[in-house]
């Protein structure tokens, strides 16, 4: 009875409405046995961080295709830290140039996935990062 599924929050920060990737990934994570909380479009970093702590997720996956990632992703990391929840792994996805990936990783985003990444790759990454 006491299974311990990995809990993941998939969130769309900012105003971007392209949720194909987020939804496909949410389903893939679900099919891999995880509990996936999806919060829909137009989330502020504050909403995402609050949801992550209330839901006590292991991983937060942020998807943004509008180019606002440098502004939004590190803010989520920062807020989690303020809520003593910096053990939550933050991942990013979207149309993100490689220079930005370096910058995001420096600011505490664990990994960034760009278009063409297979969902299995993300599933494996989530499993590995939660086991650490």
């Amino acid at each position, binding site marked *: 009875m006491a299974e311990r599924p990995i809990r993941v929050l998939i969130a769309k920060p900012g105003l971007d409405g392209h949720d194909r990737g987020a939804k496909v990934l949410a389903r893939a*994570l679900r099919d891999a*046995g995880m*509990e996936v909380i*999806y919060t829909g479009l137009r*989330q502020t970093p*504050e909403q995402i961080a609050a949801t992550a702590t*209330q*839901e*006590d997720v292991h991983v937060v996956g942020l998807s943004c295709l509008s180019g606002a990632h440098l502004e939004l992703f590190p803010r989520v990391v920062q807020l989690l830290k303020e809520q003593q929840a910096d053990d939550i792994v933050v991942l990013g996805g979207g149309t993100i140039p490689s220079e930005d990936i370096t910058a995001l990783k420096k600011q505490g985003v664990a990994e960034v996935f760009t278009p063409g990444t297979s969902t299995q790759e993300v599933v494996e990454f989530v499993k590995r990062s939660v086991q650490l």
Partner: protein
Amino acid sequence: MEPLSGIKIGGSSVSLAERVLRGDVRATGRLISLIENAPEEAEQELRALHAYTGNAHVVGITGSPGIGKSTLTDRLAKRWRKEGFQVGIIAVDPNSPFSGGALLGDRVRMQDLATDPGVFIRSMGARGRLGGLARATHNAVRVLDAAGKGVIFVETVGVGQSEVDIVRTADTVVVGLVPGMGDDIQTIKAGILEIADVFAINKADRPDANRLVIELQMALGTSGNADTGASARTEGRWIPPIEQTIASTGEGTGALRKAIADHWEHLQRSGELETRRRARYEAELQSVVEDHWRKRFFEYWQQRGHWEQVVEQLLRKEIDPFTAAQQLLSPFLDSEIGG
């Protein structure tokens, strides 16, 4: 995966329970995880919380998928917030199709509440457990109750037995229905009608809303009462009022809020609250005892490898099941009680 209990978050060595009582969101989230993942470890923390529970009005909200439960919950939560109450919401999805995995999307309808420090929302999936889900939900409610939430909504999708078990732990059960969605009375399981304290006919701007109200009144045997709500309040017996709402605009949710509050008042005034809670504690005690007892018993014999032996003996007719049971139980029976 990291251990869930006994961990120190942010250098604090205070127990999770103590931190829950101080209103620590992180600890509250953690303790609910513990309840879900390691119920026995959670018991240690829950012991410390029991004395602080019993203050919250627990409102169950159930109904078929697509009737707007989350939106209703969102609207109701905002109304209680406006009156200064802290609000807890547990959104249970017992219908996850794959074992273990689940997609929990109820929060989408509650986005504005996410950053309200007076609101705590938690989504729970089924994880293949049936009876356990109701108990986990109940214990999660207990945590939010101790954390000072004045009203706690338990929202569950569907109309099956597991949903009934979940909402039974609520003080007030709201059953949501929608006209023209095949929610005619014939298709609604009798069980769900029996547990309803308040009905919410949502999307009441749809053409066949009145028909659904009449059908419902007939099923309840309250037809002829134009205003069932009034009769509910005048007599000692509670007759479930039928409220019409349009959750998307908020219309009718004020009346629904009032009906729910009336029921709470009725429970308190009539003494039914204590009766219900007494019954609930008794049931809980019984199930906790059974669980612990069963667990101890099987562990004891399985460790000794004796269990399979006895089954083998039964097969070869060397012993009968009744004698075997008595023998297996004997190490646990106090000689004075057992005689």
